[in-house]
Each structure stands twice: as C-alpha cells, then as structure tokens.
C-alpha cells in the first residue's frame, strides 16, 4: 500500500495559493498514432488553459482530437501506438510530460480526475462499487478497508445515490445508467481533485437524466472550486455550465471564446454550422440544418484549412493556406478578450 502525505479533512481553498498561473495549461500539444496504414495525426498543436473554479468546454465531432487531448493530459493514452512528439502539459506550472511514472500516478486521481462516457464499461464489472470507490482512499490515503467503506458511503450520499449504505456492496450492473454515472462522478470527486476532466459524461444517458447529472456536476464543481474540462459533441449541453469554450476540428482548435459570445456571434464557419444544426423551438417545422460531408480522415487531412471541403464559404486560399488561430476583434479593432478563430474569413463570419 502506498501512503502519501495525509491530508486534513478540511478542503484547502483552491486557486488561492497560486492565483497567478493557470491550473492546467496545454501548450502546442501534438499526438499521433502509428497504425498499419500510416501515421494518424490526432492532435496537431492544441493550446488551452483552465483555472481553478473555471469550466472549459471542448467541443468537436468524433475524431476531432478532443478525447485524445484529454487522455494525453490524464496520461492514459495507449503508447504505443500513440506518441506525443511535441508539446507541454503544465499542471500548476510543471510539465507533466517530463515527470516520472510515479510522479504522474500521484497526480492522477488525486489532483486530476476523469469521468468517462460509458460508466458501465468503465467500472470494473467484478468489483463492488464500494470497493472501487474505497480504492481511492486506500491507495492514495492509506486508509483501512473499514474507513474506506465509510468514506465510500459518504461519497455516494454526496452524489445523491439513494440508500447509499445499503447499496455500497452492489455491483455496477445492478445500478441504472444515471446512478452508474453518479458513481463515476463520486469516484472522480473522492480525493477532491483540483481538476476534473469529464469526457462526454452524459452522452450515454437519457435526456432527463442528462440534465440531473450535469447539474450535479456543476454544483459539486462550484462547491469544491475545481477546474473542469467538459468534453462534448453537443453544444446544447454546455451552454449553462461552461465559462469558455474551445471548438476542435481535425486535431486543432478552430475557435476559442467565452461561452455566451460564441452562441451570439460565432467566428468560424464550422461553429456556425454546429449552432445552426441545434433544433430550436422557434424554427419548428423547418428543415434542420446539417453540416455536409464527413469529418476528415486523420491519415489524409486536407491541405490548407482542414474544414475546406465541407465549408460553405471556402475560397481558393482555404485549399492552399493553413489558417492560424488569430485574435478576433470588433469591427473597430477593439480586442475581444479570449476570442480567437482559425479562419481566413473570420471577419466576414463574425461581422458579416
């Protein structure tokens, strides 16, 4: 059993000690996968940061690199075939990619925790939920089995699982989908980490349950003042919870923005397309918009802007020149804080 310095039960105030730097900062991250058919470049130079108490939504279709980035932060990429040729992942100013296995292991679960999409397959089917929750305390805090069980029940109460004490010895398959996802959340929360990465936490759930789980997550984040990275493909889910958003396409961030501004004025045709494809009550009866075409094959990403084959505004320059992620300004040139777009025609898109 590994025992690391025991923390007091009172949660320390987060973010206060180093309010200067970001909690987590990803710098120019590249991830590639070596497959039989060639090298798939899944992430090509991603930059983003999260502060304590802040929620960053990362939006994108499957294959956009949003989950791969998260897995790289968590250190759970399969390597090989995965490889990180370039980039830094700074946690409280320290590059985690340079840390030893043990150093990273001490951060995982304790400082940064992750919530996965499919709770049924992500929980171990042959171990009771109490055991799986208690494992966090036993491994990281050196608690006895009995203490760990008491803490597990406490956690299950916290995420509002009814009759927690009676159900602590049940197995994952005995819970409903929503309850299982609550257990995943409880497991991530167990050691009150500084940062939680939630990878499509509600995608596998019914719509009504989705809202409950999302609210729970947001409440807990506020309570503990944690940083949260919320990965999703659904713009509807994030509007109420996120502070800022990064839209990813083909392994790159194509637009960054504070959340509400993005909804009001998207600065990238891809984001615009995503927004237009959300069903809206006031447009009942009209045909729903859909972005044409398929996400690019990561083995053969189109030249120029990766989105050009699907973009309604594409010009010749889009097929030849790669657009950099540049700051977005008002028409008069005043800067819009936190806004960036990787489109040759961002001006036309946002102001047009």
């Amino acid at each position: 059993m590994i025992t690391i310095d025991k923390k007091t039960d009172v949660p320390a105030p987060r973010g206060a000690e180093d309010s200067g730097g970001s909690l987590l900062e990803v710098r120019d991250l590249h991830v590639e996968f070596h497959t039989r058919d060639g090298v798939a470049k899944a992430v090509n130079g991603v930059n983003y940061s999260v502060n304590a108490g802040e929620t960053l939504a990362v939006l994108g279709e499957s294959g956009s690199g949003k989950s791969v980035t998260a897995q790289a932060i968590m250190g759970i990429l399969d390597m090989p075939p995965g490889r990180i040729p370039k980039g830094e992942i700074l946690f409280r100013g320290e590059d985690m990619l340079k840390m030893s296995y043990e150093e990273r292991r001490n951060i995982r679960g304790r400082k940064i925790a992750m919530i996965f999409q499919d709770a049924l397959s992500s929980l171990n089917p042959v171990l009771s939920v109490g055991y799986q929750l208690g494992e966090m305390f036993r491994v990281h805090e050196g608690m006895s089995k009995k203490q760990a069980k008491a803490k597990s029940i406490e956690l299950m109460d916290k995420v509002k699982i009814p009759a927690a004490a009676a159900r602590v010895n049940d197995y994952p398959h005995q819970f409903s989908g929503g309850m299982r996802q609550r257990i995943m959340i409880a497991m991530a929360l167990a050691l009150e980490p500084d940062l939680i990465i939630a990878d499509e936490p509600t995608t596998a759930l019914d719509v009504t349950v989705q809202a409950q789980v999302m609210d729970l997550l947001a409440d807990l984040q506020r309570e503990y003042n944690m940083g949260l990275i919320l990965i999703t493909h659904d713009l509807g889910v994030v509007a109420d919870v996120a502070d800022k958003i990064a839209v990813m396409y083909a392994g790159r961030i194509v637009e960054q923005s504070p959340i509400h501004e993005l909804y009001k004025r998207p600065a990238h045709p891809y984001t615009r397309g995503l927004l237009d494809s959300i069903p809206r009550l006031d447009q009942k009866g009209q045909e729903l918009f859909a972005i044409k075409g398929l996400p690019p094959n990561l083995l053969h990403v189109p030249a120029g802007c990766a989105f050009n084959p699907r973009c309604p505004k594409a010009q010749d320059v889009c097929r030849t020149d790669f657009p950099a992620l540049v700051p977005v300004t008002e028409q008069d040139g005043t800067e819009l804080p936190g806004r960036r777009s990787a489109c040759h025609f961002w001006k036309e898109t946002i102001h047009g």
Partner: protein
Amino acid sequence: MGRYVARRLLQMIPVFIGSTLLVFSMMYALPGDPVRALAGEQAVDPVQIAAMKKELGLDLPLWHQYLNYLTGLFQGDFGTQIATQRPVAEEIARAFPITIRLALFAFVFTTVVGIAMGVFAGLKADMLRDRTLLLITLLLISVPSFVLGFLAQVFFAHQLGWVDPNVSPEAAWDELVLPAVVLGSLSLAYVARLTRTSVAENLRADYMRTAVAKGLPRRRIIGVHLLRNSMIPVVTFLGTDIGTLMGGAVVTEGIFNVQGVGNAVFQALRHREGSTVVGIVTLIVIVYLVASLLVDLLYAVLDPRIRYA
C-alpha cells in the same frame, strides 16, 4: 445459491447413473469373460464355469447385474475381485490416493505455471515473448504426453541420472515431480493460451483505463483489476481439467510405473475384472462432477453478473 447447489446435485444423479451404466455395460456387454480370463489357457470344465458365474451373479441379465452393483455401491461396497478375492475397495484405497496426489500435483503445476506464463505473454501481446509462448504451447500440445514422458525419462533419468526412471510403490512427493510435469504439460499449454488471450482482451477494456486514471499502482491495476476479470474463463477450463488429469494419469503412470489407478485399471482390464474398472471410473466421474460443480460456484464468486436461481 443453496437452491442452485441442490438442483445441481440432483442433476448429477442421472449423469452419475448414466456414466456408471455406460462403463458397466461396456465392461459386460462386450465380448470377454472374467471367469475364463481367470482360467487362462487351461481347459476348464464348462459346468464349473457356469457354477462360478452363478455364484458371482454373472449369469443374471445385464440390468440385474447393474442393479446389484449399484445397490452394493450405495452401501459402500465396490464388489470383490474375482481372481484375488480381495474387496475392490481395498485396491481403490491403495491406488486412488497415489493418482490423486499425482493429479493434484500436476494441477497445481498447470495452474501456477500456466497462468504465470499466460499473464506474462498477454501483457505484451504480439511481442517476442508472446510469440515464444505461442510456439512453446503449440509444441506442448502437439507432442503426445507419452512421447514427452519418454523424452523426460531418457533425459533426466538415463542421461543426467537425477531421478529414478521408475517411481517406487510408495510414490513419495519428490518422486512424482517429473510425472506430474509430464502429465500437466498439455493442460499447461491450454491454460497459458487461454490466460494469454483473456489478459490481452481485458487489457483493452474501458475499466482498465479507469484504473489507470484513478492513479492506482501498476501491480494493483494488474493484480486486482486485470486478473480478476481475466481468470473467469480460465477457471472454467480448470474445472474440467481435474477430471482430464485423472484420466490422463493412466498414460503417465504407465511410463513411470506409478502404482496408481491407471495401473490398477490396466491390470483389471487384462483380467476382465469388471467391478474394479467400473469402480475406479465411477470415482473419477464423481471427482469430475464435483470439480465442475465447485467451479461453477467459484464462477459466481468471480463474476457477480452471474446469478444462480
């Protein structure tokens, strides 16, 4: 659970009766005659033979003989050997412990070494050590166990002189090492392959990713999360394996001259001692049935998704 065990025990009864009846009828319905076998080549008065048969109940129809046998069996009477006039139970009590010891030894060897090899290879599927294991297991499966036995005997007993080629009638533990390894080698190959496949498959499971994300130490991830799941199919195999090892012991005992049930069956077959053969096979069938029941129960412990009603 209790009801399940009861139902399984009830189901064992027809299988038990069926197996004994099968062996019993094979022994008695097919040509060959114990009384004549006793007389050997000498000419014996047919009247005398008929009298002997009547005395032993061998003139009765098959079903009646079987009924008599079964009745005796339930009273703990395995019958009497015709040639020696000794109770069969005595022969079984002598030979059975030796074979059990041999089979158990082989079983432990199979389980420990097989699982270790399988985990070792499965953790790095498709790497050199995985390929090597696949090759070794292929060879172990292909070489018949008696060939392996002879090779082991030539090498360890005749060439190196480490062990005696023949096991003494007491069959001490250390003498059984070589026979047990030979006996277990086929099962070892199966266990290693099964473990390897299972480990390699579970390694890709989502919950393994979760375990890493929880910051668990590597040996806990493998020892608790991976192994618990990977052992499920292996345990199923091991359950039927005990019976297989007991059966396979016949061959190994022949090579190393172990005085176990294989030897006893062999002698009994030569003398057409039906009750000895049936008794021993019956016991092996019981061992097999009990082992598979235990395994099914263990299965439920390992995999909570299985519920017995």
